[in-house]
Every structure is written in C-alpha cells, then in structure tokens.
C-alpha cells in the first residue's frame, strides 16, 4: 500500500483546473496555455514517447499538439468529458497519426533492445500497480484474463496495431483481434 502511494501518478498539477485553462486559452490568454504546458508537458512527452519510442519526435508532437490545443480550445466543453483527458487525446492522436503515417520505419531504427524491453514492461501488471487502488479502470482491467489485458495495454500505451500485438503475443492475427474486441467489450460493460 505504501509503495502504491509513493508511485501514485497524481501530484501537484491536480491544482490546475484544466477546463478553466482551456476556456481561457479559447479567449486568447497565453498564460493559461503556459500553465497547461508547465503542468502537463513533461508527462505528455512521456506519453508520446511511449508510442513513438523517440524523444525528439515526441517533443515535436507535443509542440504541435500545444499549438493545436491553443487553436481549438473552444471545441472543448464540459459535456466532452474530462478536460485533461481531452488534452492528452490531442497529443495521443497527433502521435498516432505520425506513427500511422508511414514514418514508423524511421522511428524503429533507434529502438534498441533495452528500450524494447522497457516497452514490454508497460504491458504487464506493473502498470496496473501505478493506477490508483480505487480506480475502476484498474479493477476492470484486473478482471480481464492476461492475454486480453496485455493486448489492450499494448494498443493504448504503445500504439501497437492488431498485427503487432499478434506478433508480440505469438498468436494468429484473428486471435489478437478477438482478444482486443472481447477485452474492449468487457471493459465497456465493467465500467458502465
């Protein structure tokens, strides 16, 4: 328990009201954009890097994403769900577009074994330990069997395709697709 507390991901930036900052961005308040940058840029780069596996490309993606956030902040409203989630999605979408745009080969060049094994660690239960003990997502992921859980984590955290999941898990493509589909459907049900 103590260990879990120590690695809880939430810290100082909880003080920031992301929705309010976005609304100030929409009104042209650059200080609000800076506040978002200071609170989130470090973690956003890490999220992009998990997908792209290169720090420099991850920083480019975050840079472009912040400009996008600035320009389309008025598209966010409270009925769109979590403001913080919306911000992370802008970065994730940008990273995934870069990844899916055929730049993957450049990206793979520098992936060495150490980093690949670090990536592999993202997909096991150590990730779940970093989620809050009361997290509904954590409970629902724990209810999935390991193959489905790992498939979903590979897709979300590392941007793996169905084919890459199948390759990494050493199963036919159809099996990987079925794991993902059933895992997603079970999660939807579990999380309501």
């Amino acid at each position, binding site marked *: 328990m103590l260990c879990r507390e120590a690695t809880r991901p939430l810290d100082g930036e909880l003080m920031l009201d992301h929705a309010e900052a976005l609304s100030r961005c929409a009104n042209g308040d650059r200080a609000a*954009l800076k506040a978002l940058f200071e609170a989130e*840029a470090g973690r956003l780069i890490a999220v992009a890097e998990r997908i792209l596996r290169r720090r420099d490309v991850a920083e480019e993606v975050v840079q472009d994403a912040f400009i996008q956030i600035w320009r389309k902040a008025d*598209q966010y409203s409270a009925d769109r769900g979590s403001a913080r989630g919306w911000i992370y999605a802008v970065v994730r979408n940008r990273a995934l577009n870069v990844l*899916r*745009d055929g730049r993957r080969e450049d990206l793979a060049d520098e992936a060495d074994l150490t980093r690949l094994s670090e990536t592999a660690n993202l997909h096991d239960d150590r990730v779940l330990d970093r989620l809050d003990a009361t997290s509904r997502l954590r409970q629902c992921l724990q209810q999935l069997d390991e193959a489905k859980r790992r498939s979903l*984590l590979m*897709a979300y955290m590392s941007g793996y*395709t169905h084919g890459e999941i199948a390759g990494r898990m050493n199963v036919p493509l159809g099996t990987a697709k079925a794991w993902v589909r059933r895992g997603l459907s079970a999660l939807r049900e579990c999380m309501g």
Partner: protein
Amino acid sequence: MTSTTTPMDGQNLLELADEYALGLLDAQERAQVEDALLHDDDLRRAVDNARDRFHELDLTAEPVTPSPHLWENIETAAAERVDDGPPLPSASGARTVTAANDNAVRRWRWAALAGIAASLVLAVGLLRMPSTTPSAAVIAVLVDEAGEPLVIVEDFGDRSTRVTPLVDVTVPAGQTMQLWTLPDEETGPVSLGLIEEPETMILDDGPQLPAPQADQLYEITIEQDGGSPTGRPTGEILGKGFAKQPR
C-alpha cells in the same frame, strides 16, 4: 412499411470509438473517423466516453523534462496566431447551415447526418473485407427520416447498382419500391429501377448516366406497381442518402 432497428449498429459504433481511442485504426480509417466527428454527435459521445475510460493510463507515464526551447517555440506560434486576427476556427463554424424555414430539407439533412456513423461503420467494415468483387464507384447508405439506415446502394457507374436492404420493409399490396438518383439539378431525378422484393439485388438495366459523384443523392420512394407513372418520384420517400466514394 415496417422497419426494425439493427442492434449491431450501436455496438459497432462503440467498437469503432474504442478502436479509435485505443489507436488501432489505420491512417485512412482514422481520417474517416476524424471527419465524421465534426458532425456526428453519437460518434463523438462514444469517442469522448472511450477516451475518458482509458485516460488514467496516460497518468502512469513518468514525466520527463522538456527541452528548454520547447515552450518558446509554442509561444511564438501561439503569438502569430493571435496577431492574425480573429482565428480560433471552431467545429461549429464549419457546420452546414440550412435555411431555418426549410424544415423538410433540414430534417432530412439531420437524418442523413445521423446515418453517417452507421455508414462509417459499414465503410470501415467494407475496407477490411478482401476485395474480390468489382468495386462500386460510389456507395450510399439510405436512411429513413429518423436516421435509421435502411439500404446500402452501390452504384457501379456502368448502369448497374447493387441494393442491399438492412431492415425488413413491407410494401403495401399493389405498390413497389423505386430507386432514384439525382445526377444533377438540371437532369432531375432518374429512376435506377424497381425493387420488387426487399432482398439484396443488382439492378442492371439502369439508364446511361454520367459517372456517379460523391454527394450524389439516392432515394427510394413507394410507387404504384410498375413504377411511377410520371417517370419522376411521386410517392412517399422511404429513405435517402448521399453517396461517398469508397477509398
């Protein structure tokens, strides 16, 4: 006429939203979803929910220290934008505005928009099927007034059209369904053939028309047996849809 909901549609929408949020779609599918998000409220809601479901995983990433120049670059770009005058393009600004007094058009437009999620699900499904059949020049998903998808129309541009009903439709005795398209305003609506039985069929005796275009209107009306006596649609409109080109 009776039409029943196909329960798959809602399920497929949620699945598509999840796969988009997870990042499992390829570049083309991602672009299609992003287009549809601009005007499809159901899909947007599903994507918003999917995003929030997984967002906690983002927070497990260990923050790193950004390069010193990163904020400067962003600030410079943001400043340029403000100096450009009133920028901040919004999704709402891009929406099609229809004359408020044109209720019929408006209603149909909303219905057609509501059908976009369904057609997108179908389009992504089609993309994933191995292409063993000749591909259609355009595909339209015809929806009823409530936005419920009724029929897929695939126009091959060679006087043949495949019609695939998605729900059960009963036509009163002595009447028949007729498929129309509107190649352009000047030509007016043109009959592509009669749909005698609500089953998948190829209408292969259509008129010689210019190659079908994206956004071309297709619709089905209920006409007397043997088809409209005037050569133009006269009966109740069963479903309408605007064509898309398969990618």
